[in-house]
């Protein structure tokens, strides 16, 4: 009887210690999380475009997932390959979260030439996971409007080239625009961390 009482007290003490430790750990983590939470810029601009597989894809299809929306064109020989390769690297590092909880969306800035077939070949070049990465095109005016609303500049400059800014936007599970990455030199680890931090949000 006495041994049972001691054992019960030990278990209770242990439980109290664990609870206390969790409470101590919980408090600073909450504070830190709130300090480091990504800003909420506003509602992400919606779109409905056509994927590399010919399917209609809308931003709202990604509701419940974290999405990275960026802009490229298939014949780009300067910065787009760097950007797509960087995202492909992050795709691999995301493991099973990619596709199920995190999606990438690359929208062409050259819709006149980037048909679904062209984008399909482009995607194959980078060995992308089609379940989680959509390459989108559409009518030029429609695409141009999406480009503009995401804060990207794009303009044809002849010779098949498109003058455009590289901007990658993270959209949270509620469809809110949270942060944008300028250029192609951003840290892929920070990018991955931001994606995962949005997954952790309630």
């Amino acid at each position, binding site marked *: 009887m006495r041994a049972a009482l001691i054992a019960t007290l030990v278990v209770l003490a242990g439980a109290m210690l664990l609870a206390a430790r969790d409470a101590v750990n919980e408090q600073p983590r909450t504070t830190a999380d709130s300090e480091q939470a990504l800003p909420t810029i506003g509602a992400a601009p919606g779109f409905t475009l056509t994927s590399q597989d010919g399917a209609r894809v809308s931003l709202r299809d990604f509701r419940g997932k974290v999405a990275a929306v960026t802009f490229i064109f298939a014949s780009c020989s300067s910065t787009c390959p760097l950007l797509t390769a960087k995202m492909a690297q992050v795709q691999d590092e995301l493991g099973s979260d990619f596709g199920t909880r995190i999606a990438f969306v690359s929208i062409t800035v050259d819709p006149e030439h980037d048909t679904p077939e062209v984008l399909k070949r482009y995607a194959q070049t980078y060995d992308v996971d089609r379940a989680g990465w959509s390459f989108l095109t559409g009518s030029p005016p429609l695409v141009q409007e999406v480009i*503009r609303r995401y804060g990207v500049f794009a303009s044809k400059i002849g010779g098949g080239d498109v003058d455009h800014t590289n901007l990658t936007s993270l959209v949270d599970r509620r469809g809110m625009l949270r942060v944008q990455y300028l250029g192609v030199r951003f840290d892929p680890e*920070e990018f991955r961390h931001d994606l995962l931090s949005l997954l952790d949000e309630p």
Partner: protein
Amino acid sequence: MITQSRRRFLAMASLANAAALVGAPKPHAADAPPETTTIRLAKIPGICIAPQYVAEELLRVEGFTDIRYVATTGAYQHEQIAHGEVDISLHFAAPTILAMDGGAPITVLAGVHVGCFELFGNEDIRSIADLKGKIVGVQGLGSSPHVFLTGMASYVGLDPMKDIHWIFSPSVKPMELFAKGKIDAFLGFPPEPQEMRARNIGHVIVNSSVDRPWSQYFCCMLIGHTDFVHRYPIATKRALRAILKATDLCVSEPGRVAQLMVDGGFTAHLDYALQTLNEVPYGVWRDYDPEDTIRFYSLRLREAGMIKSSPQKIIAEGTDWRSLNELKRELKG
């Protein structure tokens, strides 16, 4: 991004057609539309303010439809802003502080880049202190080079008013006077340093992109007319976002930006423009605290007797970092 070439014109025409098909262009979605769609920026002979020269299309993305470049001299750009002729512009830190101390309605919004200016001297000059007793050329009293040099001389213990023989030359560029041997030193701003190197004239005493402490403080800051900033806070933030995006473009694609500046008529020499973009550190707007810059130059100018206000007063009454702080979090790079 500059519309003056035929290619640019055609590109803009196709953009306009696209916009017409989908209705009036909607601005960048994040915030409300700008309260005004008109914005006036300065155009100066100097090209270190490259970001605002290539920001035109990015400003359109932000909802501005009437974007004007107002020609002014770089030396007195703050006057155009103070008089309400320019709404927002990159301008040099030190003369901006001087103008603010004089009551000009200017609000500093962000630091954009460091490293614009280089002090050139003849063979007798090896340091700033060697300017004592020497002839230094500037465009005019209170011009940007004059104010910066005054602060620099004061920093090393000189009395700028007494120890330096100033030559004020509004009509002939001090760079040309220096090349002819008529002055001992001058402060050059891009593309002048690049041209001096190409002509192999003089040597650099201070290069503000690498020499401390000057390299630790912004030379170019984004400033706005206070009324514009107060009346149009969303437009202000949108303009700031466009110019900061363009600043990153200067880092990532200097060749493209240099060509745009030439095509747009902002400079004639592609090689000087490209050198400027490669030499001036454009990638630091997130890293340095602009308030440090205001404090540093306010102290220098106060030491030199050029201003009466304390740094705290200048900062409290003449700065607004809210948009910058938001954009630092919203725009990673």
